[in-house]
Structure formats: C-alpha cells, structure tokens
C-alpha cells in the first residue's frame, strides 16, 4: 500500500456504503483518497460500483453510510466525463463546450476565449460550428473532454470514457489525456475495466472487488512520469509496464475470487 496522501487530499471517501432502492448494495466500506495531481485508476469487474464511486466523488449522489469529504474550492472544481459523450445534439460544438461556463455565470467574452482555447487544445478548431452528429465517436469524446475542462477543474472524473471507441482512437486519446493531465496539474480519477489502460495511464491503481465493491488492492505505478505521445510506445514495451499489468491482473483475479484474470 502507498502511504496515504496528506491532509491536502482532494477527495476522501471513508467507509462509504451505497445501497440503492430495491436493496442492491453497490459499495460496502469503500475507503479511498485522491491526492492532488494524482492520476488514479479505478479498476474492477463490471457492476462493481466503480461508477457509483465516481458519482459519489462528484456529489451527484449521497452515500448511504460513511462520508465523502471534498476539499474543492467551488463548483468549477469538478469535471465529469461520461461513458457516452453526452452532448446536446441540438447545439454546436462551441455551444456544448460553453455550457458549464454559462451555467457558472462566466462573462461572455471570457466564455468565448476559454472555449476557443479548449477547442484548439483538443484539436477541434475548425469544428466549432459543427453539430455532434457530424463528428466521429472520437471527436465527440474530445468535445466532451473539452467541456469538462473548460471551467478549469481541479478534479476530473472520467467514467470509462473511451470504452466505446476503437483501439487506435483510444490510444491516441489516452496520450492526449496524459498530456492534459501533465500541463494542468489536476487530479484525475479514471474508471476502466481495462488492465492495460489502467497500467498505461495511472500513477496509482485501485482494484475493486465484485459487488458490493470495496478496495481489494492498490498498486503504485513506478513508471517515468512523462508518458505522453512521444514515450508511449517505448513505455508500452517496457518491463515496468508489463510488471504493472501482471500485478494488476493478479489483484483483479483475486477480486474475482480466483476465477482467472481479465
């Protein structure tokens, strides 16, 4: 186990349980700390409550017992990216990205400036006036990420954001996410069920048990921290990467009750 992040933790879940109406218990005694600037992957079998944990961190749902402490300055501070791009189909790309800024009462010229900035960063300039249906799945996901980043969050939560994309797009977006993370110094929590994706992206991997979910293992990734596009292939071939994958697979196998790896 890693030494627990200090009191400056961005989010801390303590002994959180979550039971839904109908009696389904999604989480049982989840303890989790997200430190500033961390890239934490939440990994676990389908239906283990990963998404619920993310929604708890976002404040979109309340725990049944236990506590969720968020040390974040304000509403601007959390960005959420869903599994689907979840764009407004009736609005152009720029208006989709502007939505959170409008809701947060950012002045108009500032909105324009920040939207332009995000579009450029995610390679969407030239698509500002396009409608979501005119874009590919990968481009839509970029819009979704641009929207989450526009209010300059300190915590970015991603719920299996690339699961529906093809492998090539997925790898490219992985690298872009790493770039963003490095340049923004934000904390990222990333839900995935891919061992390889978690080992590639994360600085720390928390493995959840099958439902009701709790942490059954945490793996620190000792890998060079610039892992962006230029280093990607090298890192994917490295011993450190394979070691991480093996460790994560082993934990996941335990979590599944010894019924084999991923």
């Amino acid at each position, binding site marked *: 186990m890693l030494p627990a992040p200090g009191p400056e933790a961005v989010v801390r879940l303590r002994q959180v349980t979550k039971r839904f109406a109908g009696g389904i218990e999604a989480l049982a005694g989840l303890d989790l700390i997200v430190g500033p600037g961390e890239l934490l992957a939440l990994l676990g079998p389908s239906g283990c409550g990963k998404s619920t944990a993310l929604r708890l961190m*976002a404040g979109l749902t309340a725990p049944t017992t236990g506590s969720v402490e968020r040390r974040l300055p304000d509403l601007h501070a959390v960005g*959420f990216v869903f599994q*689907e791009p979840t764009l407004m*189909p009736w*609005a152009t790309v720029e208006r989709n990205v502007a*939505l959170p800024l409008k*809701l947060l009462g950012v002045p108009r010229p500032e909105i324009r400036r920040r939207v332009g900035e995000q579009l450029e960063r995610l390679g969407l300039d030239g698509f500002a006036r396009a409608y979501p249906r005119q874009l590919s799945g990968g481009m839509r996901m970029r819009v979704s990420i641009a929207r989450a980043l526009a209010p300059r969050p300190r915590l970015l939560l991603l719920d299996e954001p690339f699961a529906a994309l093809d492998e090539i797009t997925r790898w490219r977006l992985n690298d872009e996410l790493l770039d963003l993370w490095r340049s923004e110094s934000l904390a990222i929590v990333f839900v995935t069920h891919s061992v390889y994706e978690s080992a590639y992206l994360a600085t720390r991997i928390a493995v959840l048990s099958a439902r009701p979910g709790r942490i059954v293992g945490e793996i620190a990734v000792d890998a060079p921290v610039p892992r962006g596009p230029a280093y990607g292939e090298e890192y994917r071939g490295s011993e450190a990467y394979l070691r991480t994958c093996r460790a994560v697979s082993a934990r996941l196998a335990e979590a599944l009750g010894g019924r084999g790896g991923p």
Partner: protein
Amino acid sequence: MRRFLANVLPPAGVVALALAAWEAVVRLRHIPEYLLPGPLRIAAALRDDWPLLYPSLLQTLAVTGEALLAAAVLGGGLAVLLIQAKWIERSLFPFAVILQVTPLVAIAPLLLIWVKDVRFALVLCAFLVAFFPVAANTTLGLQSADHHLLDLMRLYGASRWKVLRYIRLPSALPYFLGGLRISGGLALIGAVVAEFVAGTGGAASGLAYRILEAGYTLAIPRMFAALALLAGSGVLLYAVLSGVSYLALRRWHESAVRREGERRAE
C-alpha cells in the same frame, strides 16, 4: 429539379388518375349529380359559389388556427407544469385524459349553450380536441431528456429554470412538433364538428355550415366543393406543420436529417 419531379410526379399522377376514373364512372353510368357529382361539376360549383364559400373557408381556418395556437401554448404550458412534480402530474393528467376521451359531439351542444359568443365556443371546442396530443407528447419529451445531461446540470448547480431552458425544452422540441402535427388535423375536425352543431342550432358559420345548408337545399355539387376545400385545408395544414418541424429540426434531429449519399425509402 429532377428530385422535385421524382417527388411530385407520382402522387400527382395518382390523384389525376383517380379523378379521371371518378369522372368516367359518373358519366358512363349516368349517375345523377344529386347522388354523386363528378369532379368537373364540383370544380364548376367551386368556381360559381366561390363568393359564398371563400368567407366560410376563411372562418373555418381562423377557428382552426386559433384553436391550434391555443393548443400549442396551453398544451406546452401544461406539460411544463406537469413535470414539475410527480404529484402535479398525477393530479392533473387524468383531467386531460377525461377531456380527450369525452366525445366532442356530446359536449359541443352544451358548450354552445354555456358560452354566449358562438365564435369563442367554436374555438373552445376545436381547442379541446387539439390540445391533448401537444400536452401528452411534450410531457413525454420533457421527461425524455438525457439523464447524463441532467447530471451535468446538477454538477454545475443549475437552477430548475436553467435545466428547463438548456436541456428539457430542446429535448422536448421534436415531441412537441410531432404532437402539433397531430393536433393540426384534430383542430380542423374539432372546428368542423363544432360548426355542425352550431349550424344545426341555426348559427351561420364556416364551411361545415355551408355543407349543412347545401344538403338542405340539395345543392350537392356545392356540398362536395366545400368538402374538397376542407380536405385541401387539412392537407395544407399538415404540410405547413411538417415544414415547420423540418426547419426547426433539420440541423440535428434524426427525423429531419438526411444523411449524405442516402436515399430514403419513400
């Protein structure tokens, strides 16, 4: 141009063929015009009786239009009210359903007695049948907003009004327009039914009254001419509402978007 011809020629051809067949049957079998006039005779009646029919047409269309406008505004408004809370929906929706399933012919005479102003009573009758599709469809649309988008609104602390404005209303727009298309035809039928009832009571009004009157005086070609005007109005109304729907949705909604290189099965 070519596509236009391909779209217009076949239906126009079918209509022309049907009319020709009708005319032929009437002539060959020597059907008297007080039983079934041929299309040419009806066209002549339309021309000759135009001074009589035109004001009636305008009146029926005005009643239909006002009823439809009221249905759009009040039906949409009711839908917004209904989604504010489950208990509001549960308490008010049954009334909407009761109004919808009560046959207009049964209540129109009462309404015409209760409401002094005949013209207002006509609009009220047409409104009663037209408002339900708008209200029911819009309610469904407002409730069908993407749940993740609603989550996003909560994440940024959006007020109820902002959720309505940014997410729920645009989500409901295609449903609202679909409801309006159904309501257009119903408003016309409602107006005609109400005019019939009013006409039997002696109050002169729109095209339905002309039909009644022509029936009493055995001016059957004029009766058919009035009917043709009604049918034409219905088609036109539907076309206009479809056009509005297309213009409003063409940029984003699947119903209006034509994909590149795709020929729809039409």
